[in-house]
């Protein structure tokens, strides 16, 4: 106990401030309803996705021979019908946006530094846009007559 303390009354140790502390200057109002629509979208898309995804899994994995029936011909046959094109397009968009928004809130909750949270979200948005556009492109331009 003889070691000399680095700190004393005139020179106290730094206190540990919590991340992104609220001060008089911080409440910056954005005056948008983005978070409200985001919250509603999660609930509504969730309900629709229960039907879409469970139906999808039932058809793909359980009914009519299960997973072994899936092949190029099966996909080509299904996408010949606008109904299944619409189903898959709906599922793609809703699932991707639902998942991306969920991950956005997770990043907002857990990434402490502003730069970390910015770049994680940029990565997320890029991946989401890429997947959604690629999937949409394939659904609409799918050609069953490949050489």
């Amino acid at each position, binding site marked *: 106990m003889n070691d000399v303390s680095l700190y004393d009354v005139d020179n106290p140790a730094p206190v540990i401030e919590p991340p992104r502390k609220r001060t008089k200057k911080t*409440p910056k109002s954005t005056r948008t309803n983005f*978070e409200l629509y985001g919250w509603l979208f999660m609930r509504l898309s969730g309900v629709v996705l229960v039907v879409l995804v469970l139906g999808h899994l039932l058809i793909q994995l359980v009914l009519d021979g299960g997973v072994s029936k899936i092949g190029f011909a099966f996909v080509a046959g299904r996408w010949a019908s606008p109904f299944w094109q619409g189903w898959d397009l709906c599922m793609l968009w809703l699932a991707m946006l639902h998942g991306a928004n969920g991950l956005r809130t997770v990043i*907002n909750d857990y990434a402490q530094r502003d730069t970390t949270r910015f770049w994680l979200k940029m990565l997320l948005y890029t991946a989401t846009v890429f997947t959604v556009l690629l999937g949409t492109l394939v659904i609409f331009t799918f050609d069953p007559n490949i050489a």
Partner: protein
Amino acid sequence: MSSPTLEKHSAALDAAENTASQMITATFRIRRFNPEVSEEASWQDFQLEIDPKERVLDALHKIKWDQDGTLTFRRSCAHGICGSDAMRINGKNRLACKTLIKDINPQKPITVEAIKGLTVLKDLVVDMEPFFQAYRDVMPFLITNGNEPTRERRQTAEDRERFDDTTKCILCAACTSSCPVFWNDGQYFGPAAIVNAHRFIFDSRDEGGEQRLEILNDKDGVWRCRTTFNCTDACPRGIEVTKAIQEVKRALITRRF
């Protein structure tokens, strides 16, 4: 003449002996931090003889008065109204003045530490300023238009009942400092500020509800709540905090659609 005095004396002695037999030895493991000594916080154990029917606050007093005068904590009324002595006791946010020692298993060491998510200044004292800033930001006061009435502003019993639960808040910060969203992001208003906004949003006499809803509609407002119910569990006043937050969300949605 002497016998009644003797009897009285022995009765008093008996009472003293009875109390003495009820005393137990409890260990309090307290998270100490003093920036004038070290930058590190550390646990310190205190052993004391105490009646298990006493409160954690009484134990802290005994430690401060009899063992270590440097132990620092806040308390004012000591009866669960002022909201000064919210602390994390055995890992749960409680008021030290409303927690009986017998209710928190004194066989094991009782841990006492400062509430989380706010800057610890010394031992159990935290900087409450960000918490009160969020409180101020929701405008927790009556807002009205037009001329002031000559009589009091009247309200039916049903209208008063609508926000009765949220009037009980004592601003102890037990809810806000138990919220995992607040721990990671101090920009979130936190349960206590939303509860106090709820108290005026649902008051039939108040006309500033729109403004407060607009404030809580923002990105650090009610939509960040993940309904983990930590706040409801922590509230020493038994306010249904998560329910109040959900009611504000519902008011925001029904206002739009």
